[in-house]
């Protein structure tokens, strides 16, 4: 075990996987010489050469489109999108090709590529360095999506994504890149896609969260400790969703609060709520409640704390639900 920050665990995963599999390559803006604007790819170009850790032109559709062709030539590209909102130009490639190409070949060709990016707000950054775009990715057929909240999971989920034969998007919570610190297994470490994690056991309410909202949910559980026993479920993979873990926790506590940083409407929390409505309604003792970002553009940072789901908003939602 090594104690690492979350972003260091990402870097560790890339080193281990590139060492293990010579077909793995990293491409993106500033990933080589600089080692990435967050240093997630630091040291890779020195270790594996400029052909396997490639500084690309500033062209996100070009990066992801080239990655499709690289897969066809036998590579397993890991594409870095520098920031969440900078990934939008690549959605054309993701929706029209990345998620469809295997299907188009009737399963004959695989596209084992990874798109990874730092996402989310709270970092006092200029506009469009703060988005939570997970729903766009989850909604795209043919693509899987994972979001870690701990250093160990950041390594394990990225490793699973790199080894997965299908395209996987990994969103990394930049807010906790260098605050989340924890034990990370050395060498190869896989956290299978599609398995949620009970971050904390509880009996009165379940707080469902992922990424940077997991620590918020945990702190809310702390704040509520005298009033209620809260379970925190870290989904880890958004697609495929670990339905059995979600339903088991809902059945156990009978109350669910979903915490999501992205805007509310059609956000991932809506999908979680729909699954609960379809499959857990007889286990529930109250309505499913969402605590989310608002349906507004992510704001300038002087008021971003008012946008982000806070410990107070989550605790308030739990109290309302318990009183219902």
């Amino acid at each position, binding site marked *: 075990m090594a104690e690492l920050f979350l972003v260091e665990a990402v870097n560790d995963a890339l080193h281990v996987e590139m060492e293990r599999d010579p077909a793995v390559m990293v491409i993106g803006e500033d990933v080589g010489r600089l080692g990435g604007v967050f240093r997630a790819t630091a040291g890779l170009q020195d270790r594996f050469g400029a052909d396997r850790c490639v500084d690309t032109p500033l062209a996100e559709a*070009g990066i992801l489109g080239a990655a499709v062709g*690289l897969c066809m030539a*036998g590579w397993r590209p890991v594409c870095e999108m520098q920031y969440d909102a900078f990934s939008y130009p690549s959605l054309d490639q993701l929706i029209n090709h990345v998620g469809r190409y295997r*299907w188009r*070949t009737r399963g*004959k060709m*695989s596209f084992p590529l990874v798109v990874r990016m730092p996402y989310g707000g709270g970092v006092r950054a200029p506009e469009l360095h703060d988005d939570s775009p997970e729903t766009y990715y989850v909604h795209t057929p043919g693509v899987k999506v994972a979001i870690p909240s701990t250093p160990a999971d950041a390594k394990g989920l990225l490793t699973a994504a790199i080894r997965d034969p299908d395209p996987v998007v990994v969103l990394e919570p930049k807010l906790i890149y260098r605050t989340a610190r924890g034990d990370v297994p050395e060498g190869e470490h896989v956290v299978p896609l599609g398995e949620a994690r009970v971050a904390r056991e509880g009996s009165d309410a379940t707080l469902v969260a992922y990424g940077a909202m997991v620590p918020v949910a945990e702190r809310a559980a702390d704040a509520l400790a005298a009033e209620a026993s809260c379970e925190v479920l870290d989904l880890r993979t958004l697609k495929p969703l670990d339905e059995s873990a979600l339903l088991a926790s809902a059945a156990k506590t009978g109350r669910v609060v979903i915490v999501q940083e992205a805007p509310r409407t059609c956000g991932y929390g809506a999908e979680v709520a729909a699954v609960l409505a379809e499959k857990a309604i007889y286990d529930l003792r109250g309505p499913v409640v969402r605590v989310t970002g608002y349906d507004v553009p992510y704001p300038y940072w002087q008021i971003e704390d008012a946008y982000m789901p806070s410990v107070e908003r989550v605790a308030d939602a739990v109290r309302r639900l318990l009183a219902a």
Partner: protein
Amino acid sequence: MSQVLPAEGGLRRVIGDGQGLPDGEVDLTLEEHLDLYRDLVLLRTYDERSLVYHRQGRIGTYAIFWNHEAMQAGSVFALEPRDWIFPSYRESAIGLLRGMPASTVLSWWRGHPAGWWNPEDYNVASICVPIGTHVPHAVGFAWGSRLKGEDRVAIAYFGDGATSEGSFHEGATFAGVMKAPVILFCNNNQWAISTPVAAQTAAPTLADKAIGYGMPGVRVDGADVLAVYEATREAVERARAGEGPTFIEAVTYRAAPHATADDPSIYIDEERVEEEKENEGVGRYERYLLRIGVLTDSYALEVKNKVLEIMRTAIAEAEAEPPADPGLLFEHAFVHPLPSFENDLTELRRILGET
């Protein structure tokens, strides 16, 4: 490093007009000439029969490529079988030049799974329907092949309209920077449905764009199969020599509707269409071969009858395909299907009365 010059102004031609304009020289054997002729006739016949099949309701909406055959056959003739082709829908039948059965392409236009081929069987990527988004794929493939030390060239086909797309720009940018062994082949038929090329760009020629990406821009007469062949062969040689990408602008005039659902009478210059039909690529090559004594009328007829028979068999085979199983909905999207698929399929089968 070779210097990149501004694009050529005039269009390269090899085939003369049989009158004042003389025929040029080209380094092809008699057999190669006849192979190329068969390729052209095969594509022409595929296209003309497809239009009939569409009118008979036997295939769906179809993107006509009449008078694009010289661009497709001439360029593919300059490739090796190991080189990869990235077609747009305008090149839907280009796989025929790689041994793909015509029934496969007809099945594609019939919306049947038998039309969705394995690219590795022919080194022909899937048909790209969105405009220009396959340019980065060809570039990534060519770059990735070079990184692996494999001698494979990629060629991407797209139209004049595609050069306005961001993905063309990003793909071409990558191609230049990575020195990818790729050919960007633009079939400039001067129309993007109803939008003329003058409304597409203020650049004097599309090939002028090439200099901005650090690659040569070449202009050829797109209905002159030998000019297309020679330009592509030069580009292939550059690519194999490690000198990077080439942009080829092959110019024709769209003499048929964009697709079966289009009515060009609203916007097109009918006189110009008639002029183009007089100079269309298949007839031009046929007259050339007759002039130089390589082809005889009886052989030409034999070739045409043979490919007509191929098409008759192909449409029969496509129509004989069993109906697609709705269960295919859940196949192939993922290597490991989503957990929800099993339930979805069971329920669907029950509703369809198939359980």
